[in-house]
């Protein structure tokens, strides 16, 4: 049983990583990962919405008629997105400005909806929580890696601190949209390569 709980949590971190393996929620992944701080903030905001929604959905799953389950999920998700949006705007106005429209857009992040539909709606609450926690960790990890790579190569900084010591000229393209596609593609390639080489495929 304990092993089962561990699986629920751990699968989202690598084996079914939302970004590197499932390619879900690409819109925020590509759009706001130009600096590590933005990437981390978006990851945490999404994590808050995903975990809260999964808990609520798994609690009230018995009361939702099957025909209207998707609209119900959207309403629940939108509630938490509103909370996240307002909290960010009140406490971290600069991050809120940097993320712009992408915080409200968490509501249509397919990662969140897919976890409700495929896991939270037919599992008990504690397992839904573990699943959401694992997926959130995987998503935040992926965003952090991607945005760190882009910030280091693009402007030579990490979380705003200079790290390259002027050893190479910044690749301006990395903080442009094209850099998002380039680095995401290379990272997915590396993720598949390591999985394949280390025999982590299940």
């Amino acid at each position, binding site marked *: 049983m304990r092993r089962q709980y561990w699986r629920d949590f751990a699968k989202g971190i690598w084996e079914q990583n939302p970004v590197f393996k499932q390619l879900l929620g690409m819109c925020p992944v590509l759009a706001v990962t130009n600096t590590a701080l933005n990437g981390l903030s978006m990851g945490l905001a999404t994590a808050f919405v995903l975990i809260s929604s999964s808990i609520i959905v798994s609690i009230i799953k018995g009361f939702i008629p099957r025909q209207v389950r998707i609209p119900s999920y959207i309403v629940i998700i939108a509630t938490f997105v509103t909370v996240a949006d307002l909290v960010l705007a009140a406490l971290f106005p600069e991050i809120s400005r940097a993320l712009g429209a992408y915080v409200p857009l968490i509501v249509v992040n397919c990662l969140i909806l897919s976890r409700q539909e495929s896991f939270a709606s037919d599992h008990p609450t504690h397992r839904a929580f573990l699943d959401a926690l694992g997926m959130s960790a995987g998503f935040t990890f992926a965003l952090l890696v991607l945005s760190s790579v882009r910030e280091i190569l693009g402007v030579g900084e990490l979380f705003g601190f200079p790290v390259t010591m002027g050893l*190479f*000229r*910044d*690749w*301006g*393209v*990395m903080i*442009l949209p*094209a850099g998002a596609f*380039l680095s995401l*593609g*290379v990272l997915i*390639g590396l993720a598949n390569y390591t999985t394949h080489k280390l025999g982590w495929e299940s």
Partner: protein
Amino acid sequence: MSKEMVLQTAPHLPAEDSTPKVMFSVILALIPALLAATYFFGYRALLVVTTCVLSAIVTELVFLYLRGKNLVLTDGSAILTGLLLGLTLPVRIHLSLAALGSIIAIALGKQIFGGLGHNIFNPALVGRAFLQASYPVLMTTWIAPLEHWTDNALAATTTATPLAETVEAGYRELFLGNIGGSLGETSALALLAGGLFLILLGNIDWRIPLSFLTSTAVVGGLLHLYNPGHPDPLTHLLSGGLMLGAFFMATDMVTTPITSIGSWIFGLGCGTLVVIIRLFGGQPGGVMYAILLMNAFTPIIDRYTRPSPFGEEGN
């Protein structure tokens, strides 16, 4: 099993033309342009091109090793990619950036897709697009030609290309290459000579350069008639990277359509896009973006121009 089985993709036609033969004749055809670049911009031009070629070769070897392939360069494609990339760079570019462009060209432009024959975009142009997006200022700092022969070679003045600014350059200067610009883009004469050589050898498809240049002239001419403030067709034809693009980049066998109708469509699309990007786009490098965009359309062009097999109902 001592000898490794080599699998190649269709079509399996016995032909005298082999990949190395085509590649090396293209390299040979680029020699006039390289000489012209050296004449107009000095020996640093050779240095830039050599850097690009060497880093392309090293990157190719590293990737072949990582992918567990034979470490052979006999197909010459890496050398050609480096050479083409070098010819699109300005002479003053830092050598480390030239090498970076070359590494990106081979790594992200070609090997990531599975090597020669599997790439979607022209590798040299991928490298140049990367540099253009990363260092827009450095990539468009041209120096006036021939100043390296004078004493104040280091103080060579920067100048704009005829397209970027309203610099009045005569057709003769444009044709010979006595203008500011990237290394291999200035001398239309040298490029034309190399291009005609390749067409005579039958190594490149004449349809693409012809339709590319014609459509550039026609679309450019129409817009010139509509608004005489726009450059006239001859200036369009002779300036920028058009000749280099039309003869050496838009004719890359891997990234362009294989059907003859497809080739016409490809050239037409390139020419139209070049004029549109040059006149209404915000960035220099119209030829580069035009060819890259049409590269992306190549699979769909091939799909819709597929000839119907003999005996079947045409569509």
